[in-house]
């Protein structure tokens, strides 16, 4: 039986520093993280919380020991732990990952909330940049929400979806052909609406398409695996579920692009929620196994209208394959009605609209938009970026090889509201917006109230000085003689409805724990 599809996004931001050649990406990122955390009072002397890595097992594979890597647990000292991490009262985590600032949204029940939380993350990072200017006044730091530097390096926009343990095990471990028949073809083809677009990689000069729809397709080399920095898989199989593994598993997708367009972001998350729920309920009886999914991923990225070969010999376009999933989703009702994907009617409507739009979208051999009757250039990043590129090419009379087109590509993703090309385009009214400014601003400060993120966020808001450690599945309090851990093993529990009264009654964490132990929690 399917369960609600809680979703979260982890976005790594590209970073550019001007004015200080000695400042490393790592130092700049940590300065940003700490400037923002300090602003929230999370760097006050009495606040000493750690991010708990104890539940992170990136080298263990869900498929068994043979697939794992024996490189040992990452050891990190307390000082560095506090330097790179900030759990936030909005349920998110802001931190330095390797050399990139990364923002992990809180757990969200709906795609709409996840999208709003992702956009709220941009505001958090903009605020961090603003605070950095006071610390490093002669240094200019800019952040880009994209997935490649166009010089052979990639960084992720990872998605996490809650799955029922039995279904996750069946689809990815014991019977992976189930994933190959449905989930993989869906993921490979959803780039036709979820791709962010990019001009050809400079590392592949004179080879490959001049413009492709996915930023990540060139970097994907496997279907399943543990790697994240090379030989990347579509689905990362680390055994790290951040929940009770007997009941829940995390599907960790690392193939997706970062979206700037709200429409594309909503549809990417919402359609994936629906497909996963259908997979859990064993609703899809089709076999759309691709002959070579990794090659198909690249083929479609280079030509969204191309037909890719299925294992059974059929040749279908990405739109045709997506129509199969849409048709199932339109008929689908989850076994448990209470687990229905929020806003499913809206998501289905958008999905249908966009497939109609792609069917009618006409591009010339030189990638000029000849017809876009359903205005996908207002809704999909790759089409919007292509439209902008073509305007520039037309105005400057330049070919696809012009290096400033690559600059344009990168500047599209600048998150600065005044300097970023996407945001200037949006402010001029050339994009479709779903979210209100208030909706996004809400999640800068508040966690979603219908997942465990609310509990974690409330602990940070009220009792930060008493927190010893935290991560996605636990909040640990330092009570002097003893550490008290509050497990959050069920992502669906810990909601405002359950715990608001208890938090209202608690003056400190000790009282909170007493009330929790008294059993007065609403179910």
């Amino acid at each position: 039986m399917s369960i609600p599809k809680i979703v979260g996004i982890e976005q790594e931001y590209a970073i550019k520093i001007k004015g200080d050649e000695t400042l490393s990406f790592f130092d700049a990122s940590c300065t940003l993280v700490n400037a923002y955390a300090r602003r929230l009072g999370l760097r006050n002397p009495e606040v000493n919380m750690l991010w708990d890595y104890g539940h992170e097992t990136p080298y263990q594979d869900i498929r068994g020991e043979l697939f794992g890597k024996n490189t040992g647990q990452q050891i990190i000292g307390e000082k560095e732990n506090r330097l790179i991490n900030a759990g936030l009262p909005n349920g998110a985590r802001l931190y330095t990952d390797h050399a990139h600032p990364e923002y992990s949204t809180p757990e969200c029940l709906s795609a709409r909330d996840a999208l709003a939380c992702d956009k709220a993350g941009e505001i958090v990072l903009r605020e961090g940049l603003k605070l950095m200017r006071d610390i490093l006044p002669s240094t200019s730091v800019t952040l880009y929400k994209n997935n490649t530097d166009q010089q052979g390096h990639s960084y992720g926009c990872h998605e996490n979806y809650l799955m029922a343990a039995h279904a996750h095990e069946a689809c990815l471990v014991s019977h992976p052909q189930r994933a190959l028949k449905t989930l993989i073809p869906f993921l490979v083809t959803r780039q036709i609406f979820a791709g962010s677009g990019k001009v050809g990689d400079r590392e592949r000069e004179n080879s490959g398409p001049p413009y492709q729809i996915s930023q990540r397709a060139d970097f994907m080399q496997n279907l399943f695996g543990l790697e994240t920095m090379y030989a990347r898989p579509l689905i990362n199989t680390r055994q790290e579920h951040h929940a009770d593994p007997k009941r829940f598993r995390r599907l960790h997708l690392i193939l997706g692009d970062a979206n700037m367009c709200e429409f594309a972001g909503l549809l990417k998350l919402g359609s994936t929620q629906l497909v996963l729920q259908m997979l859990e309920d064993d609703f899809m009886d089709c076999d759309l196994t691709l002959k070579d999914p990794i090659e198909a991923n690249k083929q479609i990225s280079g030509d969204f209208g191309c037909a890719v070969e299925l294992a059974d010999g059929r040749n279908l376009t990405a739109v045709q394959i997506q129509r199969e999933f849409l048709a199932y989703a339109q008929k689908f009702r989850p076994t448990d009605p209470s687990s229905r994907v929020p806003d499913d009617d809206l998501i289905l409507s958008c999905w249908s609209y966009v497939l109609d739009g792609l069917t009618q979208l006409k591009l010339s051999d030189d990638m000029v938009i000849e017809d876009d009757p359903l205005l996908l250039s207002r809704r999909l990043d790759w089409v919007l970026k292509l439209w902008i590129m073509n305007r520039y090419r037309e105005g400057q009379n330049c070919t696809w090889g012009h290096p400033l087109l690559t600059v344009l590509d990168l500047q599209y993703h600048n998150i600065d509201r005044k300097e970023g090309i996407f945001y200037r385009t949006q402010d001029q009214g050339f994009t479709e917006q779903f979210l209100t400014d208030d909706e996004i601003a809400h999640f800068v400060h508040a966690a979603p109230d219908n997942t465990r993120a609310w509990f974690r966020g409330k602990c940070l808001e009220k009792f930060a000085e008493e927190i010893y450690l935290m991560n996605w599945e636990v909040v640990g309090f330092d009570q002097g003689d003893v550490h008290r851990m509050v497990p959050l093993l069920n992502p669906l529990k810990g909601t405002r409805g359950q715990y608001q009264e208890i938090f209202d009654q608690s003056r400190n964490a000790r009282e909170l724990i007493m009330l929790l132990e008294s059993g007065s929690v609403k179910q």
Partner: protein
Amino acid sequence: MTEAQKFKQPIKKKPKKEDAEPTTPGGLSSEKKKKLEVLDEFIEGVLQEAGEEFLDEFKQVEGQ
């Protein structure tokens, strides 16, 4: 009213004139033309300021 109904639904109908694809300048309102000019000037300014050297300056390290 359901949550979904509160929000603007994409409607399968011919786009209104003011929403029409802005690559056909003949059909554009003066306001939209102005917006496009502003956008074009902005992009040109961003690219001129960044310059081609931006690409080398932008080089990142591999992400996780």
